[in-house]
């Protein structure tokens, strides 16, 4: 993100908060959905995440990457909501809180969604129709009313771009 926006975010500037939400609202919601599985709970987690981030904005170190900072808040917020719903009393003395499902890939979900949000709309659309809807290039071409060759080139560019945007995942 623009360092100037992050500097303004640190002092609680509303337009900077909006810019941060526009950039990370999707990834935070995707992460929350991944952990909680219900849109209502995920919306609550997303809203709480950004309120907490705004309240704690002065603790953000602008020399560090912003993405892991907001990710940590989002993850903890979603887990807290999950725990409140999943608390199981297994003995008179011990209140065991279970582990939320999907935690193994939650960082990948957050990062993949953040990368998708940086793709041009026409490339993002092809990726969605291919992976989520399971359509072939021919079916995508029919649905969008464009030549198959255009679908292929958009798909190739999109996946190349995703690999660049997600290259840091390989280093983890």
């Amino acid at each position: 993100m623009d360092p100037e926006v992050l500097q303004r975010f640190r002092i609680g500037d509303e337009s900077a908060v909006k810019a941060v939400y526009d950039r990370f609202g999707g990834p935070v919601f995707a992460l929350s959905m991944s952990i909680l599985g219900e849109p209502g709970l995920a919306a609550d987690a997303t809203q709480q995440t950004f309120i907490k981030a705004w309240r704690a904005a002065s603790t953000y170190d602008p020399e560090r990457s912003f993405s892991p900072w907001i990710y940590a808040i989002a993850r903890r917020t979603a887990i807290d909501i999950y725990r409140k719903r999943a608390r199981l009393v297994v003995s008179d003395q011990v209140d065991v809180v279970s582990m939320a499902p999907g935690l193994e890939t939650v960082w990948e979900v957050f990062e993949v969604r953040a990368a998708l949000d940086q793709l041009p709309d026409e490339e993002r659309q092809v990726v969605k129709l291919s992976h989520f809807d399971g359509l072939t290039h021919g079916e995508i071409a029919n649905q969008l009313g464009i030549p198959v060759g255009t679908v292929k080139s958009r798909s190739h560019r999109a996946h190349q771009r995703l690999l660049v945007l997600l290259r840091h995942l390989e280093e983890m």
Partner: protein
Amino acid sequence: MGTDDIRPQYLATGSGESPADHEQLDLIRGVLAESSTWEEPPEGVVDGLFATIAREGHAPVVETAAKRQRPPWLLAAGVVAAIALLVIGVVSVFDEPIAETVVAMTGTNLAPAAAGVASLRPTPSGWYIRLDVSGLPAAPEGTYYQGWVWNDDEGVSIGTFHLRDGDDAVVLWSGVDVAEYPAISVTLEDEGAGPEASERIMMKGRFEELSEG
């Protein structure tokens, strides 16, 4: 077909020539196929956010993490709770049981204030190991922490981390059976150094018996 073409092709289709990092690409493909990856937050989220901001006014200045050190008694309580979990053995997620073993970890003389627990459970792709640590400072610039599991002869890396953005839980993975590598440690490593573990052991623990199933 060159490497530059193989990877986007594999990411797009999951077929054809398999690149060296195909497992990572398969993971990304799995995420791309999930509906949660594509869903948009409702409009009400941003409305509620700005309603809260308007109600509360300026963002408060929050004390830094360094000032929010957990008192020792709280950590001790956490370790006791973790050991209680070890005794209980099986933790349930709604109706789905997950076997999880919890091991106490202690700081060495290089990090005497460090303490925490390692939670381990088997998965189809390896051992999931989560570290919840307290009192371990962020790794200095130019260094990082590395997790290891050990038997009597050798150590196997289970991942690296730095804690520079807070003390959130650290998730590591072991591709070897931890029953065969029963000691766990965290070392401090220099960036650019070789693959061997340094002698700067910051934390360590040992699991004597693993509950599986």
